[in-house]
């Protein structure tokens, strides 16, 4: 397990260097640090995910759009009539929804993508920790219900899936 002090040190080093990306694997833990581009925050992925309420040195500014979008999610989700045969993937926690592993990278899934139980469909970031959300169903993505960078609450519908 990487210590917080080690992670902080590595972030500093990567930041100061011309490295774009650094990946380290050590005793079953994987640490991936990628340099941000202009608008997105620095993503630090560290497995296994744990409850680290660490005062993260990387305090990415929350885009103001998130706050505005956040005021509406409940109303939006409820107003759409959902086809009863479709399965909804909901958020298991409160956080920020990201459609890809890093800014600029290809999204995990799109409309039409086939998913299995363990297919990662998105990331929900909470307190600087990235949580990969798995589909937990076999089928095809029919609709993506939230925007990249949007604040999502517990139970918020994220994807509609046509089950196999």
């Amino acid at each position: 397990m990487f210590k917080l002090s080690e992670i902080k040190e590595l972030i500093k080093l990567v930041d100061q260097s011309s490295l774009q990306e650094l990946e380290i694997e050590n005793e079953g833990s994987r640490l991936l640090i990628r340099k941000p581009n202009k608008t997105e925050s620095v993503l630090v992925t560290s497995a296994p995910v744990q409850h680290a309420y660490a005062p993260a040195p990387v305090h990415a500014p929350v885009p103001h759009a998130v706050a505005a979008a956040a005021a509406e999610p409940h109303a939006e989700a409820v107003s759409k009539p959902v086809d009863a045969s479709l399965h909804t993937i909901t958020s298991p926690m409160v956080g920020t929804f990201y459609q890809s592993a890093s800014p600029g990278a290809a999204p995990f899934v799109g409309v039409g993508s086939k998913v299995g139980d363990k297919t990662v469909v998105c990331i929900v970031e909470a307190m600087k920790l990235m949580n990969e959300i798995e589909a937990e169903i076999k089928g095809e993505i029919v609709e993506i219900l939230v925007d990249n960078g949007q604040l999502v609450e517990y139970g918020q519908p994220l994807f509609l899936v046509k089950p196999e």
Partner: protein
Amino acid sequence: MTFHKILVANRGEIAVRIIRACRELGIYSVAVYSEADRDALHVRLADEAYCIGPTASKDSYLSFTNLMSVATLTECDAVHPGYGFLAENADFAEICESCNIAFIGPSPDAISRMGDKSVAKQTMKEAHVPIIPGSDGLVESVEDAMSIARDIGYPVIIKATAGGGGKGIRIADNEEMLVQQITTAQQEAQNAFGNSGVYLEKYLTGMKHVEIQIIADKHGNVVHLGERDCSVQRRRQKLVEEAPCPILTPEIRQAMGQAAVRAAQAVNYSGAGTLEFLLAPDGQFYFMEMNTRIQVEHPVTEMITGVDIIKEMIRVAEGHPLSFAQDDVQINGWAIECRVNAEDPNRNFMPSAGQIKFYLPPGGFGVRVDSAAYQGYTIPPHYDSMVAKLIVWGKDRADAIARTKRALSEFAVEGVFTTIPFHLKLLEHKVFISGHHDIKFLEEHDVNNPDS
């Protein structure tokens, strides 16, 4: 500095209370709710609201991650924890601090020092606040307990150090019972609070539960707002509270108030807090515990002092000095609060969750209702059973009692059982009317018989 936005980390009537204070101060409020509370009033009243988990409190209202997630993502400056839940959780207060979010309450250190009940007693002893005779710290062994009990005299009370709010308490009338109860008490404490530490106290009888409200700022000012008499209790849970206490003299009030201020100063307290005492018929008072949060019954103090305690808590957390000094505090009139719970008083107060089909709260001069209920609202069975707090002001005790009876008789709640009939009977009971009722009043008298 002024807060821009506050996260209300609670539910029910206290969440509504805090949102109202925020609105009056021009501060945005963020409500959080579990799936079971989707239709709750606090969700509708707040400026923003987010679902933070499933029904179970441990995964929603007690979820540090989800709460801090919402607080940081919605750019809250502060969190108000209300009462219960995480209000007296030093870890939560610390996490707020480390995320640069103000915790509207005292420091994590003050919370820990007062949260551990036997440590709190020791702190009070050193601050020359009278404490109940008992063990010096935790009980080491059964032999230790037996020797302490022999010194202080039976009956004795066994209390869990990590308990509080009336939980984790057992009485032993003699040595045989003590031996039996001590190990059980330790096991229960371990299971309920994760800490098996217990301490002993002399079990005093004929005592009233009298507590002092204090409020302190971060500039060293501590003021007390007088007392509340909370002796009407059932299974150690308060049902009716009043301010002032009917048997307190100005001299004892001053002595208790000063003791409470010393106690708060001893732990560098800031924010609202309550010192709970036991008051003997001879006027001697003893420290019981300190609650480092806002209390359910705070409105009775607000009614007789004119101080909005919730707004003052917010202002103190923003860094402002208290808006008044001790000399400015005047007690005016009398206030009584009845906790109206969704329980059937004729079936041993069995909880009565369900939909409120008709709801009409009372009104008029001197009548205040703090509630999250509304017509059509379904009270969930998962949390507390509170429907509303009815708080009444009168120019003196008799006036307040009469007005409370009038207000209760107008209070219409249909669809669930409530304790309104119980309160109406209580206000007719001669012992309650005398003002000399002690904490065993409900145990020893029959509320259905006003002369018992």
